[in-house]
């Protein structure tokens, strides 16, 4: 396998909010093309802050974030913890949004929108309104919207935290096959050790007060990963390792 090209580099990134709240301190991370990176850590350790900095929604108060190539509109897709759909727009119109904001008409990008909905298994619901969908389906629309422009990087902030476990497992599987199909890079925030091990090839374990990177756990297991991986001894061992790192980050004995 050829070494992956770097996509963006965080060096010593820190964020201090007014009132001397240090949300993040000295975060360094090299994100390479095709990576699936999980940010794992307790509440308040700066995971969302890191994601917002990478998305360009706020600016670091220390350090820098450098992109290997200049960023363009639509290079980043985002999925939030809530589906965050426009309730007045249909599923297809919601997925069209990133194109629409670039000034592209629906008819010009109809195929891309359809394809994105097909990838998340919702092509039959293109004309439905968000309120007619279940929580898991709304999340799928949100994912379709994030990948419709085929961005280089998709940022996901605890996207499945509000879903039941069965739906979450299904979406985890689907997310991996989606990523394999469109070959993007993913940075995924989660509270769940199991989810991070199943999904990622690198887990960044973070600690709170102040928010910082505790250590990185490499998950060497090859993709595609399926249900069999969930019951394998390698999976169990990795979960123990990540869990121990998380406990260490929280200042407890493992």
């Amino acid at each position, binding site marked *: 396998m050829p070494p992956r090209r770097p996509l963006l580099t965080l060096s010593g990134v820190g964020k201090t909010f007014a009132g001397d709240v240090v949300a993040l301190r000295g975060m360094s991370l090299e994100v390479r093309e095709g990576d699936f990176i999980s940010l794992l850590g307790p509440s308040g350790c700066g995971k969302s802050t890191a994601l*917002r900095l990478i*998305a*360009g*929604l706020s600016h670091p108060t220390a350090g820098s974030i450098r992109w290997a190539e200049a960023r363009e*509109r*639509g290079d*980043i897709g*985002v999925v*939030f913890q*809530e589906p*965050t759909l*426009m*309730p*007045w*727009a249909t599923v297809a119109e919601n997925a069209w*949004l*990133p194109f*629409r*904001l*670039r000034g592209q008409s629906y008819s010009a990008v109809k195929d891309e929108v359809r394809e994105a909905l097909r990838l998340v298994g919702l092509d039959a619901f293109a004309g439905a*309104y*968000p*309120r007619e969908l279940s929580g898991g389906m709304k999340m799928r629309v949100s994912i379709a919207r994030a990948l419709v422009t085929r961005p280089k990087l998709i940022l996901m902030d605890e996207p499945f935290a509000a879903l039941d476990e069965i739906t979450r497992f299904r979406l985890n599987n689907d997310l991996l096959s989606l990523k394999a199909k469109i070959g993007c890079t993913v940075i995924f925030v989660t509270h769940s050790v199991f989810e991070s091990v199943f999904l990622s090839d690198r887990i960044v374990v973070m600690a709170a007060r102040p928010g910082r990177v505790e250590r990185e756990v490499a998950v060497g297991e090859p993709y595609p990963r399926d249900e069999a991986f969930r019951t394998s001894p390698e999976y169990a061992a990795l979960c123990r390792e990540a869990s121990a790192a998380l406990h260490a980050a929280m200042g407890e004995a493992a």
Partner: protein
Amino acid sequence: MTAIEAPAPLDAEEEARLRAARRDRIAKWALPVIVMALTLVLWDRIVVWNDIAHYILPAPSRVAETLVADWAILGPAAWATIQITGLALLAAVVGGVGLAVFFTQSRLFELSFYPYAVILQVTPIIAIAPLLRIYIDSVYGVLILCAWIVAFFPILSNTTLGLNSADHNLRDLFRIYGATRWQKLRYLQLPAALPYFLGGLRIAGGLSLIGAVVAEFVVGTAGQSYGLASRILEASYRLNIPRLYAALLLISAIGVVIFAALSLLSHLLLRKWHESALKRET
């Protein structure tokens, strides 16, 4: 396995629910009509049994007769009131929404002008109307202005609230995709504000009628008469109580029609997506 399965029989609870829904649909119309009919009969009986003179309390039939007989006077007056109310409401929509959009586009603009919108709102219209009458020649113009002043504030404040109520994650998303100010307004803030605006519009519809009538009581009496309010005043001077009731009836009818029309508009615009217009299957 048979290819075609008989539909599962409804269970008792489901049937009861359907019956209740049917009953509600009928009752929604039937009950108010019955109450109205009973009131009219009672009113009529009270007048007849107590032998009350029509210049004190006319029987409902007498009011109806007057409405028809005096239509040449009442009809144009009602039409004038409708026009004033409608124009004032239209101006309130344009002014209220326009100002709300400016407010959300420029914080400085909002800080500068919001206090004046409030002052306009809290000053009783009765107190301003005579003054306006001095500066503005056209009575018609004064009436529209007065009705506008009372109607525009709920639209302004509701729409401003709505424009600012768009989901903050969606706003972030728009920023990430590099949306322009105009795109953000058009695709995010205006749709998000629609339910709030429609709520304000329903209040404003009633207020513009009240404003039109009240203002006319204050300014429209100088010899000329325009809408229903001057007809009511006139009728009361002449102790023409049946006509007074007929005019009152027309005002209420106009108010009810405005409310119903705006409710229907709101329902049509929101029924596809907004919680307020949803009939959820339980």
